[in-house]
């Protein structure tokens, strides 16, 4: 019995010693959230949020991690931002109480509740998305993940792409459904530098 305990300890203690959570701060310049929604059953309209912040931790030995991503809703951009003679642009409309209601909900956030690894890299991130004051679970599938030194600054960095989907009506964003689709596809491109 004693031999078995020592055997297990001999296995676990070095692993525990190796467990090394690394903290990263998101690089807002190279981190964006993109979305896609069906419009009038005809085409898919795409847009992005230009301003993000957050952090993530990664422990490749323990195969664990966490992510917290904050997105400024007022930074929504579809490319239609020149009003001309119209009362407002598509971006202006998305900021109103019909959609993101940026005057009242300036930020949406994603906080992970669990990260699944395949090999050394995260493959799936379960978490809670808070949008318009409503928090619902959303799962992001990590499609690409790379850790390396920045070729210029030599700073250690990690980043990748993840995607998922949600129903906007779950978050109380009901305006225009079904003409403007309920299902939203999300893509997040993240880069972060080690603290």
């Amino acid at each position: 019995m004693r031999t078995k305990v020592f055997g297990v300890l001999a296995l676990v203690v070095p692993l525990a010693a190796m467990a090394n959570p690394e903290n990263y701060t998101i690089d807002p310049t190279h981190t964006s959230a993109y979305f896609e929604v069906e419009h009038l059953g005809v085409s898919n309209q795409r847009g992005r949020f230009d301003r993000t912040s957050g952090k993530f931790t990664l422990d490749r030995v323990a195969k664990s991690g966490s992510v917290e991503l904050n997105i400024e809703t007022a930074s929504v951009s579809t490319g239609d931002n020149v009003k001309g003679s119209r009362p407002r642009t598509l971006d202006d409309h998305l900021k109103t109480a019909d959609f993101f209601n940026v005057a009242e909900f300036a930020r949406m956030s994603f906080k992970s509740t669990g990260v699944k690894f395949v090999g050394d890299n995260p493959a799936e991130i379960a978490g809670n998305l808070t949008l318009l004051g409503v928090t619902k679970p959303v799962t992001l599938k990590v499609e690409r993940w790379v850790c390396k030194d920045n070729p210029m600054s030599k700073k250690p960095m990690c980043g990748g792409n993840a995607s998922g989907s949600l129903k906007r009506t779950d978050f109380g964003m009901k305006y225009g459904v079904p003409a403007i689709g309920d299902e939203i596809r999300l893509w997040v491109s993240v880069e972060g530098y080690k603290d």
Partner: protein
Amino acid sequence: MQDLLNNPAVQSSVAPFLAGLLAAGVLFPLRLGGLAAAAGFFTTVYLVGDFTLESLDSKRKLVLVAIAAPVFGVIADLAFKPTRASGPVLGAVFAAAGGWVFFNLLKQKSGLDLALHGAGLAAFVIWTVTFSVALHSDALRAGAAGLGLGLGAGVSAVLGASALLGQYGMGLGAGCGAFLLLGMIFGPRVTPGTTLTLTAGAAASLVAVGAVLTGQLPWYALAALALVPVAVLLPLPKAAPWMQAIVAALYAAAAAVAAWVLAWLASRGSAG
């Protein structure tokens, strides 16, 4: 049928008008024809389908306060004799309710900005409710004011803020328009009471304030809108009720259209 009910024009004009006409037609013998305004407003709220209690943002709190307006109105009509103080008191109550509705937006402001927005909100709601409630015994003027306030706030909100708030305003206007139509046919037998005038004044003023706080509707569009319940006090011709109703509606429309024009000019002038 569902496609039809999903059409914003049906949601905010045809359906609330029919609901208002039904409510006014069925309930006016009971002195509750004024519920046409609430019928129109809540038909639009139902069809737009945004309302939920899960995340109580300002536009959903606005709906809750709008539910209170016809309730207060019915109680006032059936249980109390109207006095001169009714309008200002109800105005103050709904201005305070407006503070709750827009609390999340007001708390982001500070100092002079907060004072101006808070005082402006209160003054506009008190003014609009007071002058609306004062029309409680005049079917044609009250109906015309409700029509003008609803459409004025609604179209201004579409131009300056949100389509959803705009639809709420237009639904209210359509319900009041249905009441006015009944007034054109039956004349003074149809009584709006505080039920219609309070609902129209409170809901329209909150929709307009919401458009200022959540969008880019300029404050001076509210000044034009505030003239609606005053404009209908202008003299009406000594003619048949239908003719008087048309003239009263034109008075209201003049102020409402002024609000639209100001909203339109502001939206064209702002950056972007």
